[in-house]
């Protein structure tokens, strides 16, 4: 029976070539875009190296100092007391504005106030990448050097391609050892093998490469460096107590860590209450960090939720339009075959037989569209990754990607097929038989 339906589905598609072309075009294009979105989300958020711990990761990217100015606005009310007019004055206190300064954290604040968190399993920090230009074979190569605290590589588990990661010894003895990413290795040496042992010069010093790690797929402030060096080599300008160049990363139960951080932050002293009267430290998860870049809200959880709903909205809209179009096409195609439905019912098909048959046909068609969409998506991903089109961002293709792509395809097929199939399965036999003569 399935085989019969399958043969019929192919035959129907072949016989109505123009219709098939139009629907397949719509399906495959929509699914391609969906797959690209899946691939993007997958490359940004998948719990793969170096983000295997992403579910336990808390980041404190910055600190904000705020001063709020208040104005008292007098309000005059006339009331009558004992037959005499009396003027009542009240004051409304209104925020007249605020000044904010926001920046990466200083290492001192991190180490002195935010490191002692009882709920964390591991805690570390990294400086934002410092940029230097190297000259290699008469070509300028920009590097971005990040100094990292102990445990950094235990929280972010970079994949080692060659050599080793930095360890306690490197840090304690302030060794001029560095780890570089694979992309930088290729830029500098044209390869990722036999790079360990080579030296590069920056900041007027000589650094020895001890390891090469795979360049992470996501691009954000957690991954803005291509050289890692030990924090003991890091000198921070001592002029500002709060502001520096560092972000804190911690691993553990995220909700507890967030609470811990917020509590620890209350212990950070106010150095100059004249200039500010509020000090805000926002611990956030990886997803929330991603969302907080969009400035929807100061609260990272809120920002994440807003971003999520916007994305869902866009996605729903993007799916809905082609879906409605497809439903429309499907209805007219099925109506075209309504005398077939009459005949099938006359010879014993139940409403459900008809329903399943048309859903099945639609799923077959959608799967075909999905396969075409997949090929187009893979080509687009290959192009994006090799051309560096999207700011060196890399899209990933993984089993998760295939799984969600298949899911999206089946979902699309069911959604666009169920309604038309249901309508047609309920049609009256005699009316169907009369409709259009076979």
């Amino acid at each position, binding site marked *: 029976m399935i085989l019969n339906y399958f*043969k019929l589905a192919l035959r129907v598609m072949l016989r109505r070539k123009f219709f098939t072309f139009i629907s397949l075009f719509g399906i495959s294009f929509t699914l391609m875009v969906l797959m690209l979105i899946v691939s993007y989300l997958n490359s940004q958020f998948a719990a793969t190296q170096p983000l295997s711990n992403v579910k336990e990761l808390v980041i404190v990217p910055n600190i904000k100092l705020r001063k709020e100015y208040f104005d008292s606005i007098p309000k005059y009310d006339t009331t009558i007391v004992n037959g005499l007019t009396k003027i009542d004055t009240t004051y409304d206190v209104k925020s007249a504005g605020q000044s904010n300064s926001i920046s990466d954290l200083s290492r001192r604040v991190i180490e002195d106030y935010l490191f002692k968190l009882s709920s964390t399993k591991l805690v570390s920090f990294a400086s934002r990448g410092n940029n230097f230009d190297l000259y290699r074979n008469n070509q300028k190569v920009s590097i971005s050097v990040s100094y990292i605290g102990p445990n950094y590589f235990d929280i972010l588990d970079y994949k080692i391609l060659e050599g080793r990661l930095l360890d306690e010894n490197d840090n304690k003895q302030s060794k001029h050892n560095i780890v570089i990413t694979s992309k930088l290795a290729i830029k500098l040496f044209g390869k990722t093998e036999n790079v360990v042992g080579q030296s590069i010069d920056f900041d007027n010093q000589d650094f020895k490469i001890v390891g090469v790690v795979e360049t992470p797929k996501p691009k954000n402030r957690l991954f803005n460096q291509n050289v890692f060096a030990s924090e003991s080599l890091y000198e921070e300008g001592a002029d500002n107590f709060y502001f520096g160049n560092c972000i804190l990363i911690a691993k553990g139960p995220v909700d507890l860590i967030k609470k811990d951080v917020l509590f620890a932050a209350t212990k950070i002293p106010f150095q100059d209450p004249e200039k500010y009267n509020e000090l805000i430290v926002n611990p956030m998860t990886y997803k929330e960090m991603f969302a907080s870049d969009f400035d929807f809200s100061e609260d990272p959880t809120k920002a994440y939720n807003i971003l999520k709903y916007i994305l869902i909205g866009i996605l729903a809209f993007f799916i809905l339009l082609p879906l409605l179009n497809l439903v429309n096409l499907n209805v007219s195609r099925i109506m075209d075959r309504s005398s077939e439905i009459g005949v099938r019912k006359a010879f014993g*098909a139940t409403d459900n037989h008809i329903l399943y048959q048309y859903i099945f046909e639609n799923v077959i068609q959608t799967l075909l569209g999905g396969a075409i969409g997949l090929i187009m998506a893979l080509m687009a991903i290959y192009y994006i990754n090799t051309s560096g089109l999207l700011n060196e961002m890399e899209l990933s293709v993984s089993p998760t990607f295939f799984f969600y792509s298949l899911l999206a395809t089946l979902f699309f097929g069911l959604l666009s097929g169920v309604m038309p199939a249901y309508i047609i399965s309920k049609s009256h036999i*005699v009316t169907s*038989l009369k409709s259009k003569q076979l």
Partner: protein
Amino acid sequence: MIQLQNLNKVYRTSTIETTALNDINLSIDKGEFLSIMGPSGCGKSTLLNIMGLLDEPSSGKLVINGQQISDYNSKAMAKYRNQHLGFIFQSFHLIPDLSVIDNVELPLIYRKMSASQRKSLAKTALESVGLSNRVDHYPNQLSGGQKQRVAIARAIVGEPSIILADEPTGNLDSVMGNEVMEILLRLNTEKQTTIVMVTHDENMANMTHRLVRLYDGSQVQ
């Protein structure tokens, strides 16, 4: 075998009411070959559709094999059609996307039956209408007479006890019409299949056991 008692069918739209059948009483025996005649619009197809459980009467009783059909739900009706009824239509109603053999197999698809068994039954049915050499053709590659013979094969493949034919020769020339008529007569004598046939052709009606005439929804003979 089939009993119609005080059967009425009224089509109602918001503006008009059409009485398609008016108090029909009819009893058809097992193995009988009955023909129905009457002018266009007198309700012949409506009557046949009600007998075939394709349409419901507005009032009255339909009893088949002692079973009152109004008790059936739509699933039970589908099953009944599948196992006991075979239809032949004036305009053949073959499914254009299916090959001849797949068209003939159609009623068997809705029975639990293996593909090989379906194939062999369908081939036998096609042989009995003289079309075993057209198995893999598609309907648009056949002449009208051949199409109707495929439709007959489809109607008889499940060995139904009743065949309902609505002007089976209406779209055919007399030679092909006679061929179709011969097949029906043979089926009736060899397998004792009960046949109810709507026709406009007096000669063909005369070849059947009994003739019922309708006029304006009422039985006149």
